C-alpha cells in the first residue's frame, strides 16, 4: 500500500523563489528520504533524515520531520531553472524496503 503522499502534486514558481513540498505518511518510520527525478532520468538521492531528527540542511535544501504529525517538508531556497524536476519522499515504514510517495512536479521558470 502507498505510504507517502506529497502535496502539492504540482508547483510552478519563478527563479529565485522558494519551493516547499510536503510529504505525509501513515505508519512509524526509521528514516525518511527525499529524491529528485529529472524528466526521463532515474531518481537521485537528496537527503536522509532520521526519525530522531527534526531538521536537516544540505546546500539550498532544508528538510523537516514531524513524527507526531507523520509529515515532512522539503524546502528549496532560491530556486533555479535546473531545479525543475519531480520530487519524491520515501519512507521505510520500519521495514527493509523504501516506499515512495506520489511525487511533486516542480516547474521553475527563468
Amino acid at each position, binding site marked *: 500500500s502507498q505510504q507517502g503522499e506529497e502535496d502539492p502534486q504540482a508547483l510552478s514558481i519563478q527563479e529565485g523563489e522558494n519551493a516547499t513540498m510536503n510529504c505525509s505518511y501513515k505508519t512509524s518510520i526509521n528514516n525518511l528520504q527525499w529524491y529528485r527525478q529529472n524528466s526521463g532520468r532515474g531518481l*537521485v538521492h537528496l537527503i536522509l533524515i532520521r526519525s530522531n531528527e527534526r531538521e536537516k540542511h544540505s546546500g539550498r535544501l532544508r528538510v523537516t520531520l514531524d513524527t507526531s504529525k507523520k509529515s515532512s517538508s522539503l524546502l528549496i531556497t532560491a530556486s533555479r531553472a535546473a531545479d525543475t524536476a519531480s520530487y519524491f519522499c520515501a519512507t521505510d515504514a520500519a521495514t527493509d524496503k523504501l516506499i515512495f510517495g506520489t511525487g511533486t512536479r516542480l516547474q521553475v521558470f527563468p
Partner: protein
Amino acid sequence: DTAVSQTPKYLVTQMGNDKSIKCEQNLGHDTMYWYKQDSKKFLKIMFSYNNKELIINETVPNRFSPKSPDKAHLNLHINSLELGDSAVYFCASSRLFQGAPPYEQYFGPGTRLTVT
C-alpha cells in the same frame, strides 16, 4: 563512470513476447532492486536481492523473474508480455546492513518498456 547502468534504455515489443532487461552497478553495493514506475509516476518496488539472495518479492505476476548472477548484476526477465506491463523499469542499488533501515539508493537511468 556510470554507477548503475541498465540496458536497453528503450524496449518496444509485442504482446506475448519474452524480453529481458539487464542492470549492473559498480558501486560495490550488496543489494539491488527492481522498481516499476507507471504513467502517473508512481514508483513501486518489485524485487530486491541481497548478496544474490532474493529478500523482497512483492506481489508481482510470476511472468516476472529476476536473476542475480553476482552482487553487481540483477537482470529482469519478463515472459508473455502484456499491455499493462508498459512502464519504466528502474534498477537501483544500495548498502544494506542486517537489522538496519534502508540506506540511500542509487538508481539507474531506467528502461522504458512499451508493449503493443
